[in-house]
């Protein structure tokens, strides 16, 4: 059976590869890509360094950048926050019951890390890092995995010198040989086992999400066919609109007086750290964190449709208002301010950053 299969594959391969270009009949569609267009998109980096731009970055620089851009999800030491990926550790665990796969313990090529950080990170603000910043962050990730010293500087020149511990840990798909016994001429049909016993039950574990709750069905039904609840639906859409107007009208006058555009611009930069989890302004939605539009001076823990930590919800019920003072305290050290907040952000170390980001938040009130 296996031989037969290979025969098919080989014949098909020969046919597709040779027939290709000879048959090509061009339709003259599309237009030539300009060199600068190719340069803008052709960013992938291969294991041999193809595609790496010039540049360099140190572990030290990477440490600061990582704290700013990456630590919110990956932790200050690349150890991972909540369910977000751990980037460091796990050496020697690949054959364990629960292997820890990180850049250090698993990734076979350094180019993959560089390429991924460059094109896909930071989450929610991808493709904004300059090559030198990427070199620095990658250097810091290597350092977090004890693969380089703290004075290490990664550059295009020494890139291929870095040894990845698991570079030889992969084999090419060998199912057709290692699992050749799954190709059976005729599987067993009767008396295939002497006894059958149940050895494990999903219900015992109980990790399956609950099926639709009645409330959710109702929500879905309303969304699907508003006619079902025409009266209610109308009332609902009118209410927030009116509230919005009121909110917009009132603080506007006060706003223009107190806003310092330079500080707001500074705050917008600081807000990049928040962007992975929070949205603000028109069309903002709840993400990992709640919408922040109008948050300054607003009650805590009460944004509709967001699941707060118990503590935050309780604080809101107890009447906590996000005055500038309260926000400043929270943003400086979130966990110190509220031990069980879901916000995994480590905090803004600089007082200036705190003031700037609050000014930026206020600009949306």
């Amino acid at each position, binding site marked *: 059976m296996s031989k037969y299969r290979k025969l098919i594959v080989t014949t098909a391969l020969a046919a597709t590869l040779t027939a290709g270009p000879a048959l090509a009949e061009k339709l003259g569609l599309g237009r030539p890509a300009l060199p600068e267009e190719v340069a803008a998109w052709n960013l992938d980096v291969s294991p041999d360094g193809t595609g790496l731009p010039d540049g360099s970055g140190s572990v030290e620089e990477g440490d600061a950048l990582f704290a700013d851009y990456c630590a919110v999800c990956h932790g200050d030491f690349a150890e991972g926050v909540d369910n977000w990926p751990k980037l460091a550790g796990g050496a020697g665990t690949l054959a364990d019951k629960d292997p820890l796969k990180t850049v250090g313990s698993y990734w076979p090529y350094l180019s993959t890390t560089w390429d991924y950080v460059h094109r896909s990170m930071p989450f929610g603000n991808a493709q904004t890092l300059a090559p030198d910043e990427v070199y620095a962050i990658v250097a810091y990730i290597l350092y977090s995995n004890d693969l380089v010293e703290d004075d290490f500087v990664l550059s295009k020149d020494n890139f291929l010198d870095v040894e990845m511990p698991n570079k030889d840990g992969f084999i090419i*798909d060998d199912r057709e040989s290692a699992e050749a016994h799954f190709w059976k001429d005729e599987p067993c049909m009767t008396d295939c086992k002497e006894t059958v016993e149940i050895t494990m039950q999903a219900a015992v574990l109980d990790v399956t999400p609950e099926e*639709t709750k009645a409330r959710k069905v109702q929500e879905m039904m309303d969304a699907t066919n508003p006619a079902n609840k025409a009266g209610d639906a109308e009332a609902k859409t009118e209410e927030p609109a009116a509230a919005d107007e009121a909110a917009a009208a009132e603080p506007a006058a006060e706003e223009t007086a107190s806003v310092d555009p330079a500080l707001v611009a500074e705050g917008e930069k600081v807000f990049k750290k928040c962007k992975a989890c929070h949205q603000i302004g028109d069309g903002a939605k709840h993400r990992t964190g709640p919408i922040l539009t109008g948050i300054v001076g607003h009650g805590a823990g009460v944004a509709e449709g967001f699941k707060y930590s118990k503590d935050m919800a309780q604080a809101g019920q107890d009447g906590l208002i996000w005055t500038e003072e309260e926000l400043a305290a929270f943003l400086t050290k979130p966990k110190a301010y509220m031990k069980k907040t879901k916000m995994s952000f480590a905090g803004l170390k600089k007082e200036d950053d705190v003031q700037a980001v609050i000014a930026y938040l206020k600009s949306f009130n």
Partner: protein
Amino acid sequence: MSDSSNAKSPSRRQFLTGAAAAGAGAVAAGAARGATADPLITEVQSWASGTGEGVDATPYGMPIRFETDVRRRNVEWLTADTISSINFTPIHALDGTITPQGCAFERHHSGAIEMRKQDYRLMINGLVDTPLVFTYEDLERFPRENRVYFCECAANTGMEWAGAQLNGAQFTHGMIHNMEYSGVSLRTLLEEAGLDAAGDLKDKWVYVEGADASSNGRSIPMEKALDDVLVAFKANGEALRKEHGYPVRLVVPGWEGNMWVKWLRRIEVTDQPVQSREETSKYTDTLANGTSRKWTWAMDAKSVVTSPSPQAPIKHGNGPLVITGLAWSGRGAIKRVDVSKDGGTTWETARLAAPGEKMALTRFYLDTEWNGEEMLLQSRAMDETGYVQPTKAELRDVRGENSIYHNNCIQTWWVKPNGEAENVEVS
């Protein structure tokens, strides 16, 4: 009245109610035979007297409200954020083989982006005679193909490696959908750019990349790229949904879903695989000894009974029972499906609703009799290459428990006398 009972979801509590109803089956059957006249027949119902909705009440229709529980669901604890996550097709509630787009599973790495057709650009670069840029309109001017293919995430059933975990076919096997795609063959587009510059095609690759912030990219060997890969812009006759890559996605028949790049923006001919994140750190299968398989692109033959199953218990009484499910293989057409009611001791061959098609879902039925006996229900797929879907034990013998991906084991549902079913493992 029938509205409210139908609209309710099959919650766990309801399974029990359903069970009670099944117990009362004999009585109900008696009623239907005419002991008491059925008011649904003898009394004029509102729908038989008044009028319904006019045309255009819903210019683009959604399923009737009694079917709102047939929808995608996610498993919150699996991922850190829904922006980079997956949900599951309600396969337990569907029949036939085509998955409606609206309930076909989603997998995003950076969220489902919104891109207009007029903003769409597709670039072909690398080892081609002329690097080209296509607009959406350009793509529509190439000769088109229509093909039905399944798309299965490599992680489908991945939560079940270490044991029976999720209680429902939707959760254990729902990272799959099957659609009819309309599009242009990748070969046609590569030939338009010209492959003479690539020289010998045997050791060449095609790197495909999406336009979203995740830049999801995969390397595909040239042999596959020139064989059956499609650049698709329609599914089931209409535009792709946003969550499936509108306006253009790649279709890589039989191969793991991660390679079906959504919002396809670039195709690069290369002389080596890029070894991107999704083909090294993810979508590689770690064996028991810590070594990992890479380039495990083809999805092995697999099947599952979709009903009865934990989310689709038997609610009727004794007598005729339709056992049904889905089978598929990334290596070709499904040739045969066997069903066992006793945990794999004896097997009977199921009826295929239609002959298996290459790399597409095949629906199977076993029209049988059930009289309240316990069943350990299994299905076993065989494809045209002679591959037989293995048991979980057979798979673990080769692959260990840390593979995450490519779990195509035989699934067992324990159907109890009350008709309720549970995900179990058997010896």
